[in-house]
């Protein structure tokens, strides 16, 4: 079955610490990969996406992610987190050219940044 696994349910960091959130997907074909962020009480916002090309993608707010096809992974990184990064982060993928684009989400990782 197609699924997304996010390794951490809740991550607590101090400001300026580095962040890496793990994401692995389960699907044998070509995928489009996404990271979305959901601030408390708000809707999902796209952080970054990978469709093709350079496997290291840069998104908004200093986030980046690396697609490693052999590991079916798309981990999210940020070198120095800020208190304002406190939010829930969802990894998702869609089946490129296969299904009609609906996203399959992971369970989410809640990030709490202590000031």
């Amino acid at each position: 079955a197609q699924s997304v696994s996010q390794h951490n349910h809740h991550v607590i960091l101090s400001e300026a610490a580095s962040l890496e959130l793990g994401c692995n997907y389960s699907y044998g074909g070509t995928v489009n990969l996404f990271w979305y962020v959901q601030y408390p009480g708000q809707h999902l916002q796209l952080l970054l996406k990978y469709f093709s090309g350079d496997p290291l993608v840069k998104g908004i707010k200093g986030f980046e992610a690396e697609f490693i096809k052999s590991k079916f992974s798309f981990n999210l990184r940020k070198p120095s987190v800020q208190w304002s990064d406190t939010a829930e982060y969802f990894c998702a993928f869609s089946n490129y050219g296969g299904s009609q684009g609906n996203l399959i989400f992971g369970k989410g990782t809640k990030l709490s940044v202590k000031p």
Partner: protein
Amino acid sequence: AAGVIQSPRHLIKEKRETATLKCYPIPRHDTVYWYQQGPGQDPQFLISFYEKMQSDKGSIPDRFSAQQFSDYHSELNMSSLELGDSALYFCASSLRRTGSDEQFFGPGTRLTVL
């Protein structure tokens, strides 16, 4: 830039009542998706429409139905509401004809069933 609009933002219903949620996609987007996010859960895909035709179906209960109208807005109709239907319902839109799967999400409708 115009975003996805959803109405109402909050809705409170009693068990066994019906509810209608509306979604207005970004202008010129041809695809609408509906997702349900229960408390503390990840968003689950319900149903999608491409050019006003149902495109894909996920975990949508039989009590729910949806359609996309000629102006591309979509409505999710929910009948015989149950307590478990309390959730945040997101609509997203995309421009599929360009080959892009990037979905833009609306603010959601928070449905509470009492």
